[in-house]
């Protein structure tokens, strides 16, 4: 048994300790936000926040996570009460298929937690690790800007 703290709650997990966090989040805790994209830490669809830092849940074994604070997109807000960052993604309509978006939001959240007023360049650099195939990047950047209170854009449409 490993105890995982996810979105502020403790869960006793009965799984092989080498199991990557992603499978525990999705299959044991039934959380949909973190997605399987590559299983290789290359695309960021599975991104969550562990103790304030972004982590690829697809390659992080649960054995490494006992006693650490794990946040997923479900921990930010709900459909009824989205967080400011989630609301910014809705306001900017920053999704097409949306498969990468929960990972993008968690990546952005990690930046904002550490640096509430990032510059455009800091946002772009920080988001580099996330892959989007629909080409929603400009809207993702706009959403992050909006969340830090800088709507309007380098990327108007």
């Amino acid at each position, binding site marked *: 048994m490993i105890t995982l703290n996810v979105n502020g709650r403790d869960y006793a997990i009965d799984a092989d300790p080498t199991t990557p966090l992603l499978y525990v989040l999705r299959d044991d805790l039934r959380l949909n936000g973190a*997605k399987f994209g*590559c299983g290789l830490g290359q695309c960021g669809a599975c991104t969550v926040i562990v103790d304030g830092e972004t982590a690829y849940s697809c390659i992080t074994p649960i054995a490494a996570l006992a006693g650490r604070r794990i946040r997923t997109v479900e921990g930010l807000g709900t459909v009824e009460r989205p967080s400011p960052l989630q609301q910014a993604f809705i306001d900017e*309509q920053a999704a097409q298929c949306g498969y990468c978006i929960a990972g993008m939001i968690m990546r952005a959240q990690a930046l904002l937690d550490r640096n509430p007023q990032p510059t455009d360049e800091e946002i772009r650099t920080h988001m580099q690790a996330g892959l989007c195939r629909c080409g929603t990047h400009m809207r993702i950047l706009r959403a992050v800007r909006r969340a830090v209170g800088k709507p309007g854009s380098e990327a108007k449409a």
Partner: protein
Amino acid sequence: MKNAIPPRQVSRREFLGACAGVVVGFSLSSRAWAQAPEAAAPLPGSLRQTPFIDSWIRIAPDGTITVFTGKVELGQGIKTALIQVAAEELVVPPARIALVTADTARTPNEGYTAGSQSMSNSATAVMNAAAQAREIIADLAATKFGVAVESLKLGDGNVRAADGRSATYAELVAEQSLHVTAKPTSRLRDPKTRSVIGKPLQRVDIPAKVTGGVAYVHDLRLPGMLHARVLRPPTYRASVRSLAAAGVEKMPGVVKVVRNGSFIAVVAEREYQSVRALEELTRVTTWDTQPLGSAADLYGQLVSLPHDDYVIRDTPGGASAWTLEASYRRPYQMHGAIGPSCAVAQFQDGSVTVWTHSQGVYPLRGALVEMLRMPPERVRCIHMEGSGCYGHNGADDAAADAALIAVALPGRPVRVQWTREQEHAFEPYGSAMLGTVRAALNAQGSITDWQYEVWSGTHAARPGGSAGNLLPAWYLQEPFTLPVPQPIPQPEGGGDRNAIPLYSIPGLRVVHHFVPQMPLRVSALRSLGAYANVFAIESFMDELALKANADPVAFRMRHLRDGRAQDVLRLAADQFRWEQYTPRAGRGRGIAFARYKNLGAYAAVALEVKVDRESGRIEVLRAVCAVDAGDAVNLDGIRNQMEGGIIQSLSWTMYESVTYGPEGITSRDWNSYPILRFAGLPRTLEVHVLERPGTPFLGTGEAAQGPTAAALANALAHATGARIRELPITHQRVAAALAD
């Protein structure tokens, strides 16, 4: 095939009739038009195949209004647009509409969600069905109240008479009221008084996607569901030599190793157990493998493979000499969905249900029926969203995997998840293509003659009711083989999509060399051949403009007769401030235009780039796009599609090429097949929509791909003088060209 009539003036029926002697049997997989004989009366959109109004619109006694579509959400926003057209014509708020998308047990058969045709097929059907339903409701109210229909007011699901009496739609509509055949024409709402179409409406699917709601087939969890992984061979043609499955079957959680010929899958109680079991299964299996060919001299191979030739335009010209010739190359490129394909299937009481992110649940069902040797009424396919697909990827194959495994484990739902490596290596790619073009200019700098030849594999190997188009079916004990591909006929075309320039050129000859058997698996990738053909045509237009000493915009304008094409090109140029552009060292501008399929949306893309001569790296400083998609139902939806199309096309154009060798596909992850990341984005990106209320929907999804590629090549040439005609335009290629 001689065809002097401009394609846009030829109906499908006329065209197919005219070509019947030439195109021998086209694939059922290609388009919706091949699915059902056309009714005598030309009904609008997909009403032609599914004419009953209640196939599209139903009003339940409790007041629920349900709209049914055979199209699916791919992230393009079609659900929201369909709700908007229905709400507009039924005079209800969008929130009153429930929408059901493709399900073989519930919805019309609209073939594939492909070809940028969901608006023209499905939205046209829904809009007309809703308008006619509204008229029926109004007539019922007029009869009930004994008043003239003109005196009634409709709104929010109610009909009100002048004297104050009112009735809800549900009170007026009896069970059979909407079970009537649609009429060819509808009284559509006046575009001037619209309250929903053309007005902002946020996408209905986005809130769940940003908060971790159930949004994808990947999120489906059925009671007792098992997790499966499929073992794929090293190359396409391979058979299992030996498999020591006993150890795998003893692994924790493993329920079964399913084997049918060389189709092997492992099924476990928990997902990560299936991941581990697949690793072990891979280790204990040996294969007899037929090597894949060499990737050396790809384009030399392409022209030497057996091909069928189709002359799709032949208007003799008078040139005695050619001014310029060039050839353009496009490698194999992949869809590269961020989420590998997934499906869930359950076999119970002799019937199989498959939850799938296929683009065409009915054609998929047809293929599954053949593969499983089951009657159609025993197979149901229900669409759930997947990761964006951009065409025919692994979705249908994963559905087939799930169905095969479910049948081996009756009663238990089975979820199949492909790996990243499997999606990269086994999805059908966009075909490698080669286009050669030559043209003659007269003394006034106008094009008098143009000849274009394009070599391409198929762009249409979708399931189409054929088991042989499903990857796992190739490996079964009694295997199915890939049907011989057929070209998609003009005017839409496949490899020859957009091969005929929209420009007015007196002497014009266009030939499509269709290569049925390609070394790699190929099928429909967003915009099909249009990407490569527009890249070739629009690059060459700039080369000709340079030769004619003409401005690229003015040179195109000179050859365009279509007013809407001119408007789009002008709008893009104006918004880019083309006329005011000040040249600066290391920078350049490029523009390109196309009308998708020569019958869909008009799009022009202008780019400004900065080129680092040392590294060859291109930075896109500005991207400006203008688009005319006809009647614009959801402006932001159109912008989102165009923005995405431009960025995806920049990725294809600057980075992407599938690599392979005798050992198999070597593009197996995002390191070996890099795509655009945030650092590769344009600094700014603008989309300007030319609205045409009340005109036919033209679709948007694929309009940006071709023009973006050529605009980049043109901007690079303007900045550096280097003309690159082979995709992708990587920084290594640019650096090499500049070093020459």
